[in-house]
């Protein structure tokens, strides 16, 4: 066992107790021969024991109910296109789909009509409306996480 391995065990909250008997004997034998490391081990054990004083607390009994109260309005709003076209019906969707398939078949053979063929524009055709919603949510999260990454490691 190297000093680095011993140090890793000391700094692992489950390190000591999770060792099997032979490894534990080796670990303790190493500490006997390295008083500074042994002192560190004892102080770190004190930290683990102190932190154990802060036990987990059960969330409130109405946690789920409050959460689903927040979820339901979002779900009840339904897809975004109903906000724009309140009278939208599945029969319209079938007609629209047929129209798009026909248009797609015509445009497919038109050079440059495929957005993947348009170079340097940065434009992407969006076929899936849920994907657009997802992108908005993802951009929101990215903005939040970029701010987070900008925090210094020390704090």
């Amino acid at each position, binding site marked *: 066992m190297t000093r680095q391995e011993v140090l890793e065990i000391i*700094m692992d*909250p*489950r390190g000591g107790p999770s060792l099997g008997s032979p490894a534990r004997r080796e670990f303790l034998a190493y500490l006997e021969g390295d008083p500074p490391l042994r002192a560190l081990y*004892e*102080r*770190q*054990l*004190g*930290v*683990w*024991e*102190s*932190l154990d*004083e*802060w036990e*987990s*607390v*059960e*969330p*409130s009994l109405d*946690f*789920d109910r*409050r*959460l689903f109260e*927040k*979820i339901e309005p*979002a779900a009840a709003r339904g897809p975004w296109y109903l906000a724009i076209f309140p009278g939208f019906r599945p029969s319209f969707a079938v007609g629209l789909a047929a129209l798009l398939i026909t248009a797609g078949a015509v445009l497919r053979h038109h050079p440059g009509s495929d957005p993947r063929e348009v170079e340097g524009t940065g434009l992407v055709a969006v076929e899936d409306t*849920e*994907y657009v*919603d*997802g*992108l908005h*949510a*993802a951009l929101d*999260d990215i903005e*939040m*996480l970029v*701010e*987070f*990454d900008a*925090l*210094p*490691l*020390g*704090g």
Partner: protein
Amino acid sequence: MLRVKEGDVECFGRLLEKYRLPLVNYLNRMVQHQAVAEELAQDAFLRVYRARATYEPTAKFTTWLFRIATRLALNSLRDRRHERGHLSLSEPREDRLPLEVADERGNREQQLLKESRLETVRQAIAALPDKQRAAVLMHKYEEMSYAQIAGVLGCSVSAVKSLLFRAYEALRDALAHMSGERKARAEK
């Protein structure tokens, strides 16, 4: 999570069941306020629910969830600091649970001692810089690996080791007297 993506509310319920306790406790230890922690956890779960259609299996769910939760906690702390001018997590806590009424004097003394030790731990954790605190809470209480913590904090594994080394160094100093007290109690 892939099943939640397909709109399986029951599956979302199972996800909630699995992560509710660890997430609320992580956030509670981060912001040191139970009601605020629960609000933040709900915000995190709401984001999970909204993002179910776009979730990709490439990002490990735990890492993703704790990344969102950590950011929410840091935003909340920042807002509270702005509201109060300066926030000290160690100031008198609004959500402190009342001590249980103890019939016997000995029990009450023990309860007070326990509360005092807990307060010391809370203050030591609160005194850590934000990222060090997050790293310690995930490492000690959530038993997350260095790689997972690195994924949450968006830094390298070696940076996480460095964060933890500095954090535990500070905690060893701040909590040293507790070890002495424990030894004294054990010897009695």
